[in-house]
């Protein structure tokens, strides 16, 4: 007798619904999803019910191909669930286990239904395995895609946040650089600085590298290019924030910056003020001295 695994599976899932649901809920309760406190039991049970109903309907529509049209609404529900799991900070294991923990209850139900009929049992188990594995993988794909979305967004935010050009005074700009200077970020930095030089009609731009952990030849080259471009636009650059160890390293490397450089941003600002014909003075002597 030829046994259709899909048919056997569909029949079992329909007839033994209550028992499978109970066992699935129990398995999930034992898992770590609930213990982490990220989701309430009532919410989990609602999801379980919704997903199970859709699995039953999808199987009844025929076929085991989880990519087929009959599974469309089930795929959407699972995608929603795993997306919310990713945002709530669940581990990948917890997320995948939501689907995989359904395996045992279904295998048990098949065993109860087809006791003794080894051929039908094997066909049913294989069918269940195939469908659930595919669904589990889809869950993981959505989970990872959501995580990557979050990471990508954060990366963009960092790139934007970490390259601010600040106006210190009329015609004096400061560009505090923080973190690793790779080519992509340097492009953004240079563009921002040059645009700010135009907008603020700046004469002097201070590039502060206190927050750059390593200055190698590539970083030095990026700095030199930025300085040269600013110079072409009529602005002088001062590089500040060169720490002692960085200075020694640059000497050994053989890099010459050929720009005015200062140890601290404050020193650089003082130079900038002087060059633009200003000076900082105390408003008046302290009260006690005047008497």
């Amino acid at each position: 007798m030829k046994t259709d695994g899909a048919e056997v599976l569909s029949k079992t899932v329909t007839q033994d619904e209550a028992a499978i649901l109970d066992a699935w809920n129990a398995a999930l309760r034992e898992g770590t999803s609930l213990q982490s406190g990220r989701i309430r039991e009532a919410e989990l049970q609602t999801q379980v019910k919704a997903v199970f109903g859709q699995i039953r309907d999808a199987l009844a529509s025929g076929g085991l191909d989880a990519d087929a049209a009959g599974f469309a609404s089930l795929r959407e529900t699972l995608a929603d669930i795993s997306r919310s799991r990713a945002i709530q900070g669940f581990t990948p294991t917890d997320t995948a286990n939501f689907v995989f923990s359904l395996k045992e209850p279904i295998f048990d139900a098949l065993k109860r239904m087809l006791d003794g009929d080894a051929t039908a049992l094997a066909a049913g188990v294989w069918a269940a395995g195939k469908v659930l594995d595919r669904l589990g993988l889809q869950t993981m794909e959505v989970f990872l895609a959501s995580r990557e979305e979050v990471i990508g967004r954060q990366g963009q935010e960092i790139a934007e946040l970490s390259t601010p050009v600040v106006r210190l005074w009329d015609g004096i700009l400061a560009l505090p650089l923080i973190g690793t200077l790779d080519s992509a970020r340097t492009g953004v930095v240079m563009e921002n600085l040059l645009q700010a030089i135009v907008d603020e009609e700046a004469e002097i731009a201070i590039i502060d590298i206190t927050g750059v952990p390593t200055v190698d030849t590539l970083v030095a080259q990026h700095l030199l290019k930025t300085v040269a471009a600013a110079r072409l636009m009529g602005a002088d650059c001062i590089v500040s924030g060169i720490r002692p160890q960085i200075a020694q390293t640059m000497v050994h490397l053989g890099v010459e910056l050929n720009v005015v450089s200062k140890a601290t941003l404050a020193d650089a600002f003082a130079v900038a003020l002087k060059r633009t014909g200003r000076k900082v003075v105390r408003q008046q002597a302290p009260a006690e001295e005047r008497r």
Partner: protein
Amino acid sequence: MTVTKTETLPVRSGDDVVRVRQRVRALAVEIGLGLVDQTKIITAASELARNTLDYGGGGDVCMEIVQAAMRKGLRLTFEDHGPGIADIEQAMTDHYTSGGGLGLGLGGAKRLSNEFHIESTPGSGTRVTIARWK
């Protein structure tokens, strides 16, 4: 001379160069290098890792903590299977570059480390070893 710890990292992308720097920093701190020596070996590692990536088409870096008598040191070996270097002497010359860099990477790395060794076979790859002793 004994090797007390070995780690291998891939150098396949720009992110890997950053990771190499971070690991070298951690190991340099572990053997107790001072701030200046840390910065030197990190910068040398950064140069060589970028060479491995840009000119060697990617490779691996092997980081070892070595102990000789009472001294501890950090030894880094960068290996790639790229086109190799035909004229090592020329490559070591300051301001010579076959790419678009400043041409200071190899010479700079040599000046930043206590030991420097380079071997390259055109067509089969390059291996650069540097060490910094405490």
